[in-house]
């Protein structure tokens, strides 16, 4: 290792350690609302990070991540409702199995198409799952969704503790951190290099002799599995599953997180999710305040998605490398 890359690695791991330490301490000092908020950022961040495998590393924009997320959520819900007492590990297993099934389905069909065609077909496929969940009322509860209770943390029958908002946060933090480290390892592995080579030049990658179609299918599966994991975590956090979580608007938000934070960076999408959710909280407090201050009552319900949407469009046009990319360039200057 050269001295400069060694120094770089030291800085990286120090920064990583500080951030993890802060995230560990955070629930002890934050009030309940913001504690939950922080946990949510981590979960949405995991979902966004899973989608980055496709958008940032393979060059495939998925507008269908809500399907993987939603099936992870519904899979966990099914396990939690069917087995008494609710079992954490079974919920994870069910959630991952369902999202993997969905990912296989989408991967098989959608990877036949490229670029925009891929993006549209992922959107349409996720909508199939939405329609299925919405109409199969007897299993999914339809529009009303499913309510269930949280499992306990631990091994049932051996040692368990109930989830509190702190321990749930730590659990989510552990899962998201582990996922990040695994995904980081994968993107730096030979497999990840092939994905990036597909992004740069698909035809050449194929010409060199890599089975591009198979790599793409594996990439979608991998991405779908981690998205499903995010769905499982969300089940624990939210204790409620509804068709709205499968709707493509979630997929759209995931794409927004990626673009805002910076694609192809894994950390960027988490940052993007944090930025988006924080802005949402800020704006949905700002407009009611402005409405009473300016005495325009109608302004109180001004949708936060309008300014955020405009910011998103501006970023697509002027700052395609996202906040993280921008920060990096600015720091390197």
């Amino acid at each position, binding site marked *: 290792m050269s001295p400069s890359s060694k120094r770089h690695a030291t800085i990286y791991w120090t920064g990583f350690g500080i951030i993890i330490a802060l995230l560990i301490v955070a629930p002890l000092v934050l009030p309940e609302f913001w504690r939950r908020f922080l946990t949510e950022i981590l979960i949405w961040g995991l979902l966004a990070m899973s989608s980055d495998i496709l958008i940032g590393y393979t060059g495939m*924009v998925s507008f269908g991540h809500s399907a993987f997320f939603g099936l992870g959520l519904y899979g966990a819900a099914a396990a939690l409702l069917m087995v008494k007492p609710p079992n954490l590990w079974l919920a994870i297993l069910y959630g991952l199995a369902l999202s993997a099934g969905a990912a296989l389905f989408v991967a098989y069909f959608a990877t036949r198409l490229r670029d*925009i065609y891929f993006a549209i077909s992922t959107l349409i496929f996720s909508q199939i799952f939405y329609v299925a969940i919405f109409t199969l009322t007897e299993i999914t509860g339809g529009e009303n969704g499913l309510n269930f209770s949280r499992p306990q943390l631990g091994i049932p029958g051996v040692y368990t503790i109930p989830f509190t908002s702190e321990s749930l946060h730590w659990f989510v933090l552990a899962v998201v951190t582990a996922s990040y480290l695994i995904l980081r390892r994968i993107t730096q592995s030979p497999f990840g290099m092939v994905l990036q080579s597909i992004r740069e030049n698909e035809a050449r990658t194929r010409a060199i002799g890599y089975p591009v179609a198979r790599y793409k299918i594996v990439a979608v599966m991998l991405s779908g599995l981690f998205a499903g994991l995010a769905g499982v975590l969300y089940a624990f956090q939210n204790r409620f599953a509804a068709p709205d979580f499968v709707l*493509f608007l979630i997929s759209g938000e995931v794409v927004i997180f990626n673009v805002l934070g910076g694609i192809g960076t894994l950390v960027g999408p988490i940052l993007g999710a944090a930025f988006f959710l924080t802005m949402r909280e800020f704006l949905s407090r700002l407009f009611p305040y402005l409405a009473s201050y300016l005495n325009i009552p*109608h302004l109180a319900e001004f949708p936060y998605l309008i300014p955020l949407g405009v910011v998103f469009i501006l970023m697509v*046009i002027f700052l395609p490398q996202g906040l993280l990319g921008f920060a990096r360039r600015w720091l390197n200057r």
Partner: protein
Amino acid sequence: MGMFADIPWDIIAIQTVNGIVTGMILALVASGLTLIFGIMDVVNFAHGELFMLGAYIGAVVLVTSGSFWVALVVSTLTVALMGAALQVTTLRPLLGRDPLTTILATFGISLVLQNYALWHFGPVPRKIQEPITGQFELFYLVYPWYRVLIAVLSAAIIGGLYLFLKYGRYGVWIRATTQDRFMAQAMGIPVPWVHTGVFAIGAGMAAASGVLFGPLIGINHAMGLDWVLKAFIVVVVGGMGNLGGSIAASILVSLLEAYAVILVGYIYVGGQPLSPALAVVVPFIVLIVTLLFRPTGLFVPTPK
């Protein structure tokens, strides 16, 4: 097929007419989408929102002017202008970049427009009163004339577009630009403005279909989603950028869906007939079958 033998044939006839009517509206939405895609590789995610805004503006103008036809024209022109403005401000800067960025930008536009409509018009659906309320008898059932009028008007608008593309000066510009953007520009065709014009035409057509379809459904801020998804499906099934293919696919998919509404009622699962609501999966099935067997689209001639 014995279990379907007792389907009354007059219901089949009714559903045929219904399928064609919806198919023509869908064709109107999809032809704008495919025209825009064909010429600038832009998948317009905001197309459904232009449809929705068209319906809202139509409803507002109808209330103030009292004339459905004034509402149709004003709404079409307004949304066309808006489309031009959107193209100039958000899509023109992306020309030459990865086409995927345009899907992101138009997705952003769709979010903004949808939320604006929710804020401005509120969550309560609005109605557009149809211009003609007459009905006629179709196999012992009454059928509104207005639905037939929709199909005829949609066909007329699409026909007008075809003639314009075939014979108009700007039509030739549009076709030349669709085939070879760089050569068209080298021939002195102002390609950036052709793009803007095509986007405006597509937006106007979406708005017109919104106003025409308005009387059949309640107008709300989220109505664009179903349409844009279906339009995406028929555009892929018909072959991206292929105008004739999109129109044929629109009618095919709508007819199949209309028939499925009857058929699922005759399929019993556990003693219960399936819900007609399940017919909405038909377009998805058509899409999957197309992707499996002809991923370039059903109606694309085999490349030479």
